[in-house]
């Protein structure tokens, strides 16, 4: 397993290196002056025109770029003048909090609903779940969000409209995760925490609809395949309790495609987060990136995309590692 771990680390670093390289090539080709915030514009200018020296020059610029990126010196935002790394540290926890909660809930409910659908294949439960997930998968997020806000927040008045917490609570930011910070601040007791959860309800529903639908469907198909295996039949015949079969034996074996689908859902959550955060005025990295595009704030767009892509790579490789841990058959692949 240790060998695999090393291999994954190598995968991670080489992927990130390639990411930086492609980003650098793209930026340098389309918008070389724009990179002046990372590579000082007058450095590495040489009058030599030989082919080899050009290549060396190009790679020197790239390594300067890479070293700045890796040490976190991503430049300063044009519209606000704050350094990009500071802004990321500020905005990322809000998005991560939303993403974690969404992922946890959609995974939980997805597994549960998918299993039910698989067990009741072709019965009304299955049909209901399939049709509802199809609808959920096809809903445009912004429309769905507005519908929910209209119904629950404005008509019924049971959920708040936007923001992470009610304005009555003046919480000092310690970790950036309001779920923790609201508990760390003793002034309001439990109320601030309830307010945070209350404010999270609609954004999590909106953001989690598509992952939920996708996970449900993948679980269903994977479980159907697993439940038709011989050993399940064998277990039933031998008298092992049904619930135990379903949840302990079948699901564990069916988990691999679900894990693969999960890593795809990460990207879906990130794109969904951009829209969800804008609609619910959730001060996260998605909203920050979107507004940077409006403002043509190139250092922010560059830094934000690099970090986002880096996070996706990291999560993908981690999930890959977990799936290899779960399924030893995947381990010995000749690389």
């Amino acid at each position, binding site marked *: 397993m240790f060998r695999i771990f090393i291999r994954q680390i190598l995968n991670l670093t080489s992927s990130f290196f390639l990411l930086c390289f492609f980003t650098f090539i793209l930026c340098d080709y389309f918008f070389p002056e724009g990179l002046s915030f990372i590579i000082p514009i007058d450095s590495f200018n040489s009058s030599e025109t030989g082919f080899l020296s050009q290549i060396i020059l190009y790679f020197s610029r790239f390594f300067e770029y890479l070293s700045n990126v890796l040490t976190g010196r991503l430049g300063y935002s044009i519209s606000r003048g704050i350094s990009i790394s500071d802004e990321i540290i500020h905005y990322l926890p809000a998005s991560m909090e939303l993403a974690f909660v969404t992922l946890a*809930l959609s995974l939980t409910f997805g597994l549960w609903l998918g299993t*039910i659908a698989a067990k009741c294949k072709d019965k009304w439960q299955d049909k209901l779940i399939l049709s509802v997930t199809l609808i959920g998968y096809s809903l445009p997020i912004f429309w769905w969000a507005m519908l929910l806000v209209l119904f629950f927040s404005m008509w019924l*008045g049971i959920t*708040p409209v*936007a923001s992470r917490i009610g304005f009555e609570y003046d919480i000092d930011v310690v970790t950036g995760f309001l*779920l923790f910070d609201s508990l760390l601040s*003793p002034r309001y007791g439990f*109320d601030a925490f309830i307010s945070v959860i209350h404010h999270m309800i609609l954004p999590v529903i909106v953001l989690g609809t598509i992952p939920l639908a996708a996970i449900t469907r993948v679980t269903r198909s994977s479980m159907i395949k697993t439940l038709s295996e011989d050993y399940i039949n064998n277990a039933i015949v031998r008298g092992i309790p049904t*619930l135990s079969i379903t949840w302990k034996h079948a699901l564990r074996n069916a988990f691999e495609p679900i894990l693969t689908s999960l890593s795809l859902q990460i990207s879906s959550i990130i794109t969904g987060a951009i829209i969800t955060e804008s609609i619910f005025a959730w001060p996260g990295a998605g909203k920050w990136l979107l507004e940077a595009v409006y403002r043509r704030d190139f250092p922010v767009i560059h830094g934000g995309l690099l970090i986002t892509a880096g996070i996706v790579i990291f999560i993908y490789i981690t999930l890959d590692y977990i799936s290899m841990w779960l399924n030893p058959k995947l381990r010995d692949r000749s690389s």
Partner: protein
Amino acid sequence: MALLKKMLFLSYMFMLMSCHDTSEPAKVFKANKSPTVQSKNKSLKQKSVSKSTTKINNIRDNLLVYCSEASPQSFNPQLVTSGTTFDASSKPIYNRLVDFKRGTSQIEASLATHWEVSADGKEYIFYLRKGVAFHHTKYFRPSRNFNADDVLFSIFRQQDTKHPFHNISNLGYRYFRSMEFDSLITKLEKLDDHTIKFTLDHAESPFIAALAMDFASILSAEYANYLQQKGIKAKIDHLPIGTGPFQFSKYNPDAFIRYRAHPNYWQGEQRLKELVFAITPDPSLRFARLIAGECDIMAKPLPIHVKSIAQYPDIISYNESGSNIAYLSMNTRKKPFNNPNVRKAINLAINKKRLLKIVYGSSAIEAKNPIPPNMWSFNNDIPESKYSPSEAKRILTNEGFIDGFKMELWAMPVQRTYNPNARKMAELIQKDLEKIGVEVSIISYEFGTFLEKTKRGEHHAALLGWIGDNGDPDNFFSPLLSCAAMKSGGNASFWCHSSFDKLINQARRISEPKDRAKLYEEAQVIFNQQLPWVPIAHAQQFILANKRVVNFRLAPTDGIYFNDVYLLPSVN
């Protein structure tokens, strides 16, 4: 807990009513993954429920939430010209030597108790108020009250290019420059701790009114020295210290700004203990928040929102005829807008009545001059704008544009008081100009970027606007149409007309309103001949607020003041 039980029961029923063929007795389902969020293994102080809800209600009754339309660019009003930044900085945090009486554009004493003007109009002596305390915050404790040094610092920082703070956060001191204060104030001296004397280059009657404007806000010199010693000068614009009714508490970019009442405010502590700006750029979301009760006051409602409050008994609207103008600026530095006849043709080709009806509803009046009709010296003799596409086409043909020409029209993506929907307006103008053969492509940038680029003259034609802030016509003419403004970037048409410029400069120097009015009327005639703009509309300004908000007034000079505003206790 009840919810969890319901879910367990439901899942149990699902399993019961299904689907496997063996007759295995159903077992009670125990969820192996509880749908809860991250671990909360912290010890909590348990408060009784009733005590905490009344406590929250008490907090909410002394906290006003204002849904603002954008993030401020800075907390220092010296650096910018945008109303959003002024609402967030100069209005709550700072005071000026003189201020506007609430709800009007009349001047009243503020940090200066009284003043004397010399006979030649060039010397102004201000006597400063004693006992004015600065804000006392986590990041700075003042050791003295307001005095003359603070006025000197605030003015010199903007005027003196060698001042240690001049280049900090240098977005340019645009307002200071476009009012020509850098050349106007030849000397500012401290006669004693509470008396200062301005010596002007020439007599300038709007000078006192100009000192009530946001860029003339008074900062703390002691704070500046403290920051300089610590080597963090830029904080003066991010963590502000002033003398105003509310002090800065916290800023979460793009999310909220929190203010606390200044306990030692010289006019007495405000009834409102806390003020929160909830930054919500989307107007529909702002409206939704107002209806849901999350916000008490909403900035810049769309006309449709104003119309629909009839169905919400808790919401009332405040309106005021605005001192503003929306216009289409044609960059006279770029072809074909260097030709006054082409500009006239564009003016003739646009159907202003239809534009107003569609974009503003009934909340604006058509504009023919650069100043609004409620401003003195408005020249009503200027004929109303004509709409005649045939004449426009004829003029274009005469000028050699038989097949028309291509142009770019820049429209901002945000609402402003003077223009609730610039993009829609651009589309309507595009349709109108199509009829005379002019092909328009519409371009948009984020508002801050938009302003920067238009100030640099990168546009071909742009939809812009202006809100007058001191009830003086010079406040429209000088920052927008003077030759000086062309250099400092407020004159988006880059139109410098010598006779026009002479008239408005002369009007600034004399103090008799009748004579000034005559000069401004002449200037408007020249404007109507040259037409560097298409003046479009003067909008009424609206604000929607909850019934519980008391004492809130809109000023014709725009801007939101929270002085003396408070909330009635909520009924639940």
